[in-house]
């Protein structure tokens, strides 16, 4: 029997009731937590939200999240054949699921004093 990694993931957007999703993914030695998250989107839930860009190189630093309460990069944290609890960063504003507002304030659309062009 193949081993599985179980990812228990905090879901939702600000103002929504606390909810968690549980996903089993096939465990393969050496894979990253990000590998597991990407597989979940393809195999079962494309709506699962998390940030990443460089995928593998730990260059973009976008995939920060909490694994069992500790801040990690999902691309360098190893997937393990056990239950792993994933939550968004605690000290950043939540956008949705595991995605948080990590852009510098002056690089957010919301920072623009935008007048409707009406």
């Amino acid at each position, binding site marked *: 029997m193949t081993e599985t990694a179980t990812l228990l993931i905090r879901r939702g957007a600000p103002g929504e009731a606390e909810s968690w999703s549980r996903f089993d993914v096939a465990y393969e030695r050496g*894979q990253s937590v990000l590998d597991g998250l990407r597989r979940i989107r393809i195999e079962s839930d494309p*709506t699962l939200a998390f940030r990443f*860009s460089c995928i593998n*190189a730990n260059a973009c630093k976008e995939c920060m999240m909490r694994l069992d309460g500790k801040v990690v990069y999902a691309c360098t944290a*190893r997937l393990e054949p056990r239950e792993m609890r994933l939550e968004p960063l605690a000290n950043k504003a939540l956008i949705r699921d595991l995605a948080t507002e990590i852009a510098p304030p002056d690089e*957010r659309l919301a920072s623009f004093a935008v007048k409707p062009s009406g």
Partner: protein
Amino acid sequence: MRTAPDRVHLATDVLIVGAGAAGMSAAIAADEQGADVLLVDRSLIGRGGATVMAQMTVAVALGEEQPDDWRDHLRDTLKAGRGLCDEGLAALLCERGPDEIRRLDGWHVGWARHADGRIRAAQAPGHDRPRCVYVDFLSTGPAVSRTLRGQVQRQERIKRVGDLCITDIVVADGVAVGAVGFSVTDGRAVSIAAKAVIIATGGLTRLYARNSASANMGGDGYALALRAGAELIDMEFVQFFPIGHLAPRLIGMDPIMWDPFRYKLGGRLLNAQGRDFAADYGVPEDGRYVAPRDLLTRAILKEVGAGRGSPAGGVFLSFQHVPADHLREAFGPVIDRLAANGIDLTRQPVEVAPIAHYHMGGIRVALDMKTAVPGLLAAGEAVGGANGANRLSGNAVTEALVFGRAAGNTAAGAAPQGAWRDEAAAEALALVAATGPASANTAAVISELQSLMNRHVGPFRTVAGLQDALADIRRLRAAIGAAPPGRPGRFDTARLDWFDARNMLLVAEAVASAALARQESRGAHQRDDFPESDECWAINQAISLRGGKPVLERRPTKAAAPA
């Protein structure tokens, strides 16, 4: 203008889509010319894209390692391009490269130096001498990104917005007047009026299952340009990087990381029998590692095809002949990162295989980076032509810097040729706000596209495979339907994937169509059914969109302008 309450409208002189090296260089140049700049990226500014991933080297004829001249760099570039380079673009890249490298040096990027202060250069495949500068260790791209980002942040006139996905260029009366997209953060529609728009979105390597790309390299700029009415060129030429990391699973490292160590140490490529095989395919390796990428890719895939590959489907790369202290010296702290992945190079080889790495093709531009659509420009890897049928190693970052600067200068200096009209943006805005059925898993569609592109539109192609690919692409297009699933919302990855899939399928069709038409083998395009190169095909193929379909046309290759 009446604006929907959930729409944001911005205006700027120069809109730059994509914040890698090309986009940031363009922003800095346009700012220097006094233009207001809006630099947007679907990811975070200066973090997504290919530049931050470019761990390796930058080709430039500085002449500090040993005497050099940009014309020699150009000769090597044209030779690698197998007769298809736009010589004017290639010359621009080589001639202006040194200025850009010194500009970055002035901004303290940290080029590796000799003890006497000269900037170091390594010899990379296809170059006639050491010409490739770098930042140790494996830090070239991150250092370039960080340095440009620092400059961009200092300029008052450069506004930056991340998490903004551009979905269409807005064209009014044949002139590009801005763009439409949506905020990834909250799903709101965004429209941007601009006097000039620069596409600096990089390449298309995400179309392939095995790739060295960031998640956002899905060829979106090519799709934006096509739909806006611009021409693409050389779309059949996708560069595969011969020795991408395959196994054992290596995390926290770029899969193309082995290359500079081969330059320094001469790692051996071995087949399943432990034998150096490259020479069997006429690829001159003899420990010096000078083979061009297309030839080495071919040798590796032929060896795998002959059943002499490694267990994971590649070949072995071994540094076991190199003494441990030399390994430590050359790899530096990277040795420890490898150890954390359970890899000890003194005891074991790794497995490597060709992976999609760079796109030679792209948006057709003039030397000032203008496309055929007034008001629309391109820069960096998004541009096609400079590298012909095969890119010389190290030319990608040079191209990003040089073309970015050229595009920024042109865009800032050009008089506006059109004016924003909401009606011209109506269709694009409607799509961004559309609420479609969640009929297909868009992440799975992208995954399937990546597999079929790897299988049929990789380095080796056949008429049957390419026709299968085109049929599959049409099937996937039908599967995703005409509108994104659900309704606009916060960080909606399924909708983001839908917009990506829409672009990726169009660009994949362009690549496969051009590959099917080119009945010869040349550079990165190898046809098993037409294995020889054919002088009749010493021309470029341009693609434009007519009635929603990509249409191919032959164009004579542009020779250098008379001196």
